[in-house]
């Protein structure tokens, strides 16, 4: 399937739908009329050369940027104009290409950030450390620890985040995202900076996340990971979508080979 086939109509079953989404920065059109859908329960990869506009698509989905044209829908609700935390509360969680942890805080405190919006308690409850607040905090810590154990950081809850290895930092970001209990998890280059074993473990982790019924949309340069983990790929180049389909379809698409892969043997 190529861009010439036109936009995919927002389907009822799709969890996330982008329709003709465009975003420009001054004169540069970073994302140009991109449409695609992510079905519930799927693992979808967003690929393309550096500067193709992939991260910008993510930032549009989570409301860090507003599209100039087009709509983004999640579970039937329009996301345009919503602030980021509102979008997260609807059930989308994300990680960042350049790891964005709370560096000076502990692993546990980082994961607790994801629990935050489902907790209650403001200034008074906190100052007085009311029994209700104590219960809420205890339940949140349990949830956070669960997610940390899930990603394999259960033994390091009190480590300060910046002292973690690179791979562990990426895992902690995933735990923080999972702690929001999302329906859709979007991962921006989760294997970036990881060695081979870590990437292998990451593929396993993605499988486990999917087994929990969480839909995944990920950006990744590691083609082995993409080909193994994803059932559908969307290919961007210069801000436009040039291909979409199963990994097999995409890897044999002449436009992809020409524009993105260049040397096919790398795939």
């Amino acid at each position, binding site marked *: 399937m190529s861009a010439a086939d036109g936009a995919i109509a927002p389907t009822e079953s799709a969890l996330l739908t982008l329709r003709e989404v465009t975003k420009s920065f001054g004169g540069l059109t970073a994302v140009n009329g991109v449409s695609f859908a992510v079905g519930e329960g799927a693992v979808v990869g967003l690929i393309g050369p550096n500067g193709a506009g992939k991260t910008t698509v993510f930032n549009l989905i989570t409301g*860090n940027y507003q599209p100039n044209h087009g709509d983004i829908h999640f579970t039937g609700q329009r996301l345009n104009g919503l602030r980021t*935390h509102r979008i997260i*509360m609807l059930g989308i969680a994300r990680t960042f290409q350049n790891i964005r942890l709370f560096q000076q805080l502990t692993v546990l*405190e980082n994961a607790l950030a994801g629990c935050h919006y489902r907790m209650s308690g403001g200034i008074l409850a906190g*100052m007085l450390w009311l029994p209700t607040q104590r219960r809420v905090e205890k339940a949140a810590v349990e949830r956070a620890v669960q997610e940390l154990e899930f990603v394999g950081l259960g033994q390091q809850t009190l480590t*300060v985040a910046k002292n973690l290895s690179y791979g562990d930092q990426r895992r902690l970001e995933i735990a923080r995202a999972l702690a929001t209990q999302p329906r859709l998890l979007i991962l921006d280059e989760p294997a970036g900076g990881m060695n081979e074993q870590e990437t292998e473990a990451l593929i396993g982790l993605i499988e486990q996340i999917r087994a929990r019924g969480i839909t995944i949309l990920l950006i990744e340069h590691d083609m082995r990971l993409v080909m193994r983990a994803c059932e559908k790929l969307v290919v961007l180049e210069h801000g436009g979508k040039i291909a979409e389909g199963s990994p097999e379809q995409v890897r044999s698409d002449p436009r992809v080979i020409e524009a993105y892969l260049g040397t096919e043997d790398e795939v």
Partner: protein
Amino acid sequence: MKPRLDWIGAGLFAALLAVAPLFLNAYQVDVLNSIGLYALLALGLNLILGEAGLFNMGHAAFYAMGAYTAAILNTRYQIPILWTLPLSGLVAGAFALAVARPVVHLRGDYLLIVTIGVGEIVRIALVNDVFGITGGANGIFGINRPRVFGYIIRRPEDFFYLIWGCVALTIFLFLRLKRSRFGRALNYLREDATAAEGSGINTDYYKLAVFGLGAAWAGMAGTLFAAKMTIISPESFSFWESVVLFMIVILGGAGSIPGVLLAAFLVVGLPELFREFAGARMLVFGLVMMVMMVVRPQGLWPARGHQGFSLAALARAVGP
């Protein structure tokens, strides 16, 4: 330090402080009272600046709002001075929300400039007697002594227990707040507001809430100040006061309650010990800040896990 040792140290300090008035003369107790007031103010500012990382160099404006609210209510409407505490806090907090709302989005350095401006506007408004109720440059006098269960608080020792009692209560409340959901949200803001928002945290709400809370605390400290002085005027709320408070938080170790206390003792107490060098105060403070920036950017007594904030962050925020 082990938690147990922390508590033993804190207990010893509190006990020593509690008996201090028995051994000190009136002037020395009065210095301790000043230190207590600054500690109270700095603990509030520490929430904004230390915990949430929002640069506020206009804290004296909120202090003034509280002091004037208390003074006006007391002298015009004969409301007992300590009864005005909640209202002074509310007025200062509401004022902070109003001024912070349009500016909390600003980057650190811009926020710093705007809060300096707010502080000056408030002071100048007081000097010019804008609503005809602040008494202009002369200020307001004839504020009643506070009364607690029929006992009139008048001597420095009396005020000592009132002020340091408030400091103790503040520490008790803020220590809890710090480890609660609200307190963590402030730290997320300071560490990375984008990541906080991306974790589902309404960052604008917390920025405003902490400004309001810190300012409300300054407002209540203002009531104590008005009660202690019985006369207040705009010069007590100058830009220099905001700078001193800012310095206490940064010097002590942003986000660290013991650090803020220690710095309050040093910044307010030391100049009293060296009164003959009063003219060199600015110079000494400037030098101390420069030396600290180089040798100990995390502050004298940094909060756990903190190594890069405070002076280093300030340098980043106001740097080129």
